[in-house]
């Protein structure tokens, strides 16, 4: 009897298929609208962030320009092709700052302070809850300005992508975001083993530096690492390449495959880490 009641109580936690998706979307709406209301109190942040984004994008473009003073191409890419890639770099970076860092970056706190208990007790998938609870809405300026920079570069290249190329770009960009999320979750899951280290996410920032340029620029061994071991080639090079027609649209399917594999592996690691969690304090 009690078990039956408990099952009914837990019922909504384990719906299947479409209902499950619908329920998670409703949750996401609730999370983010609450968050947006909070964010709108700090409108000054939007202006500060816009200025910051423009400044850092300018810095990145000038850096590329400095290299192009000495050579006509970088890893076979022309200046505006690299600028298109920098737009992608900024777009993905914006998603990291808006959604990934404020959520996944918090795992360290949850584990060290024992507040993960509060998430585990909720009738929601804990990975979903702790990955999407917050959004720093004004950071979406990075995403928009990044896409703007990429479009501007396309105009300079006098290149109108075909519908197929646009679809490939959308798919590779979604894969890129998924891969970034998987890298973050993998890094932060190590908190379960190394509880006292509180800046694991900085390792991502270090590796992401290398994503500012097409992987073809790097010497052979480094390129191998970036394609197969630390999959940053899939984050900026592949989306930019599919938009400017440097790869066949079929590459997008490969990117989606890599993203799915990264997601599945990360989820397994996350559960392995979660099993080590013993709570803390009270």
């Amino acid at each position, binding site marked *: 009897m009690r078990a039956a009641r408990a099952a009914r109580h837990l019922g909504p936690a384990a719906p299947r298929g479409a209902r499950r998706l619908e329920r998670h979307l409703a949750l996401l709406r609730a999370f983010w609208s609450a968050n947006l209301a909070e964010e709108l109190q700090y409108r000054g942040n939007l202006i*500060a962030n816009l200025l*910051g984004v423009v*400044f*850092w994008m300018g*810095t990145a473009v*000038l*850096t590329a320009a*400095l*290299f192009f*003073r*000495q*050579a006509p191409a*970088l*890893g076979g890419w022309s200046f505006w092709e690299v600028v298109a890639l920098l737009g992608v770099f900024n777009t993905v970076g914006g998603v990291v700052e808006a959604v990934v860092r404020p959520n996944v970056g918090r795992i360290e706190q949850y584990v060290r302070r024992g507040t993960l208990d509060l998430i585990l007790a909720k009738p929601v998938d804990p990975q979903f809850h702790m990955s999407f609870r917050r959004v720093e809405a004004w950071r979406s300026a990075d995403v928009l300005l990044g896409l703007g920079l990429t479009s501007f570069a396309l105009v300079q290249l006098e290149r109108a992508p075909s519908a197929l190329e646009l679809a490939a770009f959308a798919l590779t960009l979604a894969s890129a975001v998924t891969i970034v999320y998987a890298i973050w979750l993998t890094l932060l899951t190590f908190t379960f083993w*190394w509880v*006292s*280290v*509180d*800046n*694991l996410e*900085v*390792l991502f*920032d*270090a*590796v992401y*530096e*290398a994503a*500012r*340029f097409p992987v073809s*620029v*790097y*010497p052979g061994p*480094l390129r191998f690492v970036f394609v197969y071991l630390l999959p940053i080639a899939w984050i900026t090079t592949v989306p930019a390449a599919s938009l400017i027609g440097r790869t066949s649209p079929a590459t997008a399917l490969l990117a989606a495959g890599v993203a799915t594999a990264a997601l599945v592996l990360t989820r397994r690691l996350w559960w392995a880490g979660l099993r080590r969690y013993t709570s803390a304090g009270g």
Partner: protein
Amino acid sequence: MLPAVPARVRQPPQARGPDRRPSALRDWLTRYAALIRSAWLVDLQYRAEIVIWMVLGVAQPLVTLAIWWVLAGSGELGGYDRADFARYFFALMLVDQLTLAWDVWYIDRWIREGEMNVRLTRPFNPIHEAIGDNVAYKLRTGTAIALVWLLVALFWPAVRVPVDAGRWALAGTAVVLAAGLRFLTSYVNGLLAFWTTRATALAELHYGVSLFLAGRIAPLALLPPAVAAVAGVLWFPYMVAFPVEVLTGEVSGAGLVRGFGGQLFWLSAWITLYRLVWSRGIRRYCAVGG
């Protein structure tokens, strides 16, 4: 029974004898020894974090080096061939770690969250604690980078710098002056938290500009002449590029005199600015929290 307290703790320093009056110098040495020791012990708890920050610190120079390496190919760019680039950027990683200052982030927090209060009750200016922190941090990271560099140099001749005691002494001096300069810019920037809540945003801007003007992305010789001219009249090259070039042997003669002169000039300018900002700011300060 009395607990076994070491004799030197029970006796105040003044009681050590009529002929050994405490001198101001010894007082300061004792204070600094204590500050550096305590900072060292705090850092020891965070050693894994410090390694991770170092990885981030070397990522940008390494990526930049990889690109110059490829661009230089078998020729040279602006007088730099592959080996020159490798030496330049390895020296840059070492100099950067030895002159790095995180102070703006700390001072900003001290002021905004009221952590300045306890520091104001001490019998010395809070800047000494910050200096002690920096010495301890740099002993740790500088040693680590130097060891890595030595190890790499064993296998990769390109990054070796000539063994020359005179040059190393000059480079050491340039690094100390550069560290002082970077520390002051960061500290003064942090003090702006007396007036604004966006002091750290300004620090990021300063860092962004320093990518070009301090020689982080390219040796100054490879910048467009107009940009290099702007850098020449500001403090940026003296923070990184100059000590790096002293270490790699890129500057000599009149260039050394000009460089050290510039370092001393900007150091005194920033000390003056620090005094001004500190005395104005501390009068504005209303303690927050506790």
